[in-house]
């Protein structure tokens, strides 16, 4: 495509006061479509009105032109590859974007770092190993959407905007866990190949659908449960706050992934086997993660309050956590329209528990920590 050239005739006319004004006189957009702010302000859903709120099933162009604007015929092709609504859309994506913006927080300002108490060295090591894992895995949920975002057609800009909030969220998670590992003298622990293998599976996904299923539903669903567990077994209110704030962000990402998959499957039910195969591979990798000492044992030690107690009570706590991970994951799959209960690749031996019978209660889990 030829580079734009300067219209010198127009420049001369404009200098002499002869304005063009066709942009003003030949206005074909929807005049009079006026958005009304809702209770929290003027949201993306508030302005999804008239033709501006019509999301095309297939994008007619591959430009950055705002959806609903009048577009020159000779605009360049941006090379987008995700040009169908089913590729990226979720019915809750506008609301999730607004929520993501509203509920941002700062790992520097909002965590009372000076209030971390001195704790038993084994517990500090365990917390630092958990933080090492989380700092490692969280950035994939920035890298993966960042890798695909420029390929998403601008007609689905709300999805791109939501992914931009996710990228910021995950950068902050990477930041906050790195800071926690370094804030109390413990430092970073071990990074395992099995973890990196799962991250590579997501990063190298052949298409956005595969990566989103692996990351948004399976991976982030797992991490959401890990954050819940982290909140339960935190040795002080400082870590509690970290995990609660991260939990909120992660739940938004899972909500997008669940409803995106639901939308994709509702529009094209024939793709279900494709998604089953994506999740087959991911679940097998997750099973390996849950058989990794650096993943399981820090949780067990923190839950038991000591290394000695971890073998008994902590193991039960880890089983409890995995049981919750699996059940909540299966429920989200059900909601998305894909039944994984008869096909799940995570072995039964992982995640069998009875919390009440095992005495895994919140009090028990933090005994020795209070």
């Amino acid at each position, binding site marked *: 495509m030829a580079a734009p050239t300067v219209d010198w005739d127009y420049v001369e006319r404009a200098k002499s006061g002869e304005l063009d004004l066709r942009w003003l006189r030949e206005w074909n957009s929807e005049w009079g479509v006026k958005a009304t702010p*809702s*209770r*929290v302000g003027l949201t993306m859903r508030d302005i999804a009105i008239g033709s501006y709120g019509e999301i095309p099933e297939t994008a007619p162009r591959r430009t950055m032109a705002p959806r609903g604007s009048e577009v020159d015929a000779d605009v360049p092709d941006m090379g987008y590859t995700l040009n169908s609504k089913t590729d990226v859309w979720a019915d809750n994506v506008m*609301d999730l974007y*607004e*929520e993501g913006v*509203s*509920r*941002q*927080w700062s790992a520097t300002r909002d965590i009372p770092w000076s209030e971390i108490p001195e704790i038993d060295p084994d517990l500090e090591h365990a917390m630092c190993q958990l933080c090492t894992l989380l700092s490692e895995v969280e950035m994939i949920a920035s890298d993966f959407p960042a890798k695909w975002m420029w390929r998403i057609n601008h007609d689905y800009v709300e999805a791109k905007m939501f992914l931009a909030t996710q990228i910021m969220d995950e950068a902050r998670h990477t930041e906050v866990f790195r800071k926690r590992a370094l804030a109390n003298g413990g430092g970073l622990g071990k990074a395992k190949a099995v973890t990196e293998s799962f991250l590579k599976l997501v990063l190298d996904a052949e298409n956005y659908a595969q990566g989103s299923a692996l990351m948004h539903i399976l991976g982030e669903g797992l991490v*959401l449960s890990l954050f*819940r*567990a982290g*909140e*339960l077994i*935190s*040795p*002080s*209110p400082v870590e*509690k*706050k970290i*995990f*609660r*704030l991260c*939990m*909120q962000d*992660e*739940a*938004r990402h*899972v*909500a997008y992934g*669940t*409803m995106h998959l639901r939308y994709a499957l509702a529009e094209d039910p024939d793709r279900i086997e494709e998604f089953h195969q994506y999740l087959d591979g991911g679940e097998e990798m997750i099973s390996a993660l849950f058989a990794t000492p650096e993943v399981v044992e820090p949780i067990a030690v923190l839950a038991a309050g000591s290394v000695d107690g971890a073998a008994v009570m902590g193991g039960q706590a880890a089983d*409890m*956590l995995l049981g*919750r991970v699996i059940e*909540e994951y299966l*429920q*989200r799959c*059900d*909601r998305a329209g894909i039944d994984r209960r008869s096909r799940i690749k995570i072995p039964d031996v992982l995640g069998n528990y009875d*919390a*009440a019978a095992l005495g*895994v*209660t*919140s*009090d028990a*889990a*933090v005994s020795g*920590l*209070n």
Partner: protein
Amino acid sequence: MRFPSAEWIDAVAEQAAADSDELARLGFCNLRLMLAVNATPTGDRYLGLVLDGYDVTSAGEVDPATWDADCTLEGPFGAWVDMISNIREHGRADLGHTLNALTLAEFPMRVTADDPMGRDLFFRYNETLQEVFDRAARVPVDLEPAAV
């Protein structure tokens, strides 16, 4: 005032409203949470709490058959009393008595929903919810079981 009662949840919501600037910094919410207090001396009791935008309001005692909740925070009377007592004693929930800590193992309390997306709202707004429930520290309450 007694627990559970409309007066109690009204008072908690009023305390949250009094700190609306502080809670607003956590961001807006969109959640209808039902509190199910099981096995009280007068049977199961249900309270409603609405987080709408930046507002926290009480729905008082609600009928679970007709009140449309996104999710339900459910537990036996004793578990609720233990949580509220702990919040009042410490000024906020201690490590073992946060909403998440009490519900993760589904014992002694749990979060239920017909739709997992509704249940996940409990996680999406968890910091705000914890701050709201911590306001119960400022609500005088009689936690003795009411006579039948």
